[in-house]
């Protein structure tokens, strides 16, 4: 991870993150993220091969509840918060796109 971050990588990451960035935002992000990755180089030399990763601090695993119906949010109230809804459903523009 020593190579300096490039614009192309940031463009790809922005697409993955669904962020529509301008070219000047891409430039700035490339510079700032590059600086941060340089700071992160302090862990490069650590030998962590024998250490198990720790995802979260608790000893709790697989918390289940009984499979019984419980009260849930009111559908109309939830849909009222949506930018657009129709017939009890969220409304979105075409998923497959308008090209081709």
């Amino acid at each position, binding site marked *: 991870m020593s190579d300096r971050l490039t614009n192309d990588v940031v463009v790809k*990451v922005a697409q993955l993150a*669904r962020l529509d960035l301008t070219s000047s935002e891409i430039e700035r*992000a490339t510079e700032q993220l590059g600086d941060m990755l340089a700071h*992160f180089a302090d862990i490069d030399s650590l030998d962590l091969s024998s*250490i198990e*990763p720790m995802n979260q601090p608790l000893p*709790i695993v697989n918390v289940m509840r009984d499979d019984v119906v419980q009260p849930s949010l009111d559908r109309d109230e939830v849909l009222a918060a949506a930018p657009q809804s129709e017939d009890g459903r969220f409304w979105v523009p075409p998923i497959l796109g308008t090209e081709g």
Partner: protein
Amino acid sequence: MADFSTASEIAAGVRSGQLKAVDVLEQHLATVDARDAEIHAFNHVMADEARQQAAAVDATVAAGDDPGPLAGVPVALKDNMCTRGIPTTCSSKILEGWTPPYDGTVVTRLHESGAVAIGKTNLDEFAMGSSTENSAFGPTRNPLDTNLVPGGSSGGSAAAVAAGFSPLSFGSDTGGSIRQPAALCGVVGVKPTYGRVSRYGLVAFASSLDQIGPFTHTVADAALALQVVCGHDPMDSTSIPDPVPDYSALLDRGVEGMRIGRITDLPAGADPDVAERTEQAFDALAANGATIVDVEVPAFTYGLTAYYIIAPAEASSNLARYDGVRYGLRVDAPDTNAMYSATRAAGFGDEVKRRILLGTYALSAGYYDAYYGKALKIRRLMAQDFAKAYEQADVLLTPASPSVAFPFGTKTADPFSMYLCDTYTIPANLTGEPGMSVPFGTGQDDLPVGVQVLAPALAEPVMLQVAAELERNAPTEGGRS
């Protein structure tokens, strides 16, 4: 500091009928009216709802019943805690105007304990920042000096207590977002053990690090507030099922015979005034019968790197939900992908975008092992190092913030300089252990210094015990009043 009523005093007065909750509320709302235009602690003041709640508390007392341990206590809530029918913005344009269809568990518990919610407080957008300068609705100003930041991300909640708007407020702490603003505003701020307080209804930033906690004037008030909000919640699967101890039990016991750990390999970076007060805190505890022991926490120094990989990684996943479909902002576009990208570009501020990009990068193919995988291993090292330290010491003492409150704009040009504010607070989030900041005298320009008390998981009673001793011994020379 001005002499404000504490939550304990208000609750005792209201429960005994000597104080009316409606009068207490009106006093606090008047203070908000007089000064919040300047401070901007609040995104939204819930005056009407608060008046109804206060009247209900008084009616309960009049009927001979007990409204609960926080009877009539005005409380401010960070604006990332869901409140049914009340705007909850996370200080982001992407959630502007959204009103949640449910209350978070902490909100419900406070309501049931007789507390009166008076408003939603400003924060760095989605709790990402250390100064509230990242709020989409403008920064909060430090009530002690309005040219200075209040810290962050829970800057509005810290400022609300420091300004006398409410004797109690709640924030969330993912890397120091309660403890650092508490230090900068001269109030008490507690991050409990991860899982001790339900996160149901807390808008997620980094789910394995986030924890809700209180801001108060006194350690006793913090204990009172924790007693109300701590405990198991079936709505949060990361909630700890262990019984809740009496958090006030040890406050008056002193520190005779306790072992207070000094971390000899603590990362440098604390300003001289802060370092000096921290040294005096050790001295004060030693003078009261504690033993100071040197401990090593070698992984401490890698905390910043591990945190700024793990927290953005989790955030990049959590914030994927803001896509213009179910709530909040939508920017119209011909297809869904274009709609998502345009909505998120318009709705998120610079720091949030930066962290989403960083987190997405750290999780993406080819970089996962080098960054995210490695950060998770450092997290394990950190937990192991602290476990060893806690074999030798009951609690550890460090500065809460490397500096006292700083002027607006001084750290915004270089994001990493802002990240350094979290140097001493981050490890407790990575390990899930509790930590708190308690005011301990003043530093440069007579601004408050916060000392951080760190303790093992679920050892809040001992942490509060030591904090209470520091509170009793806080230096008064060089203070503002």
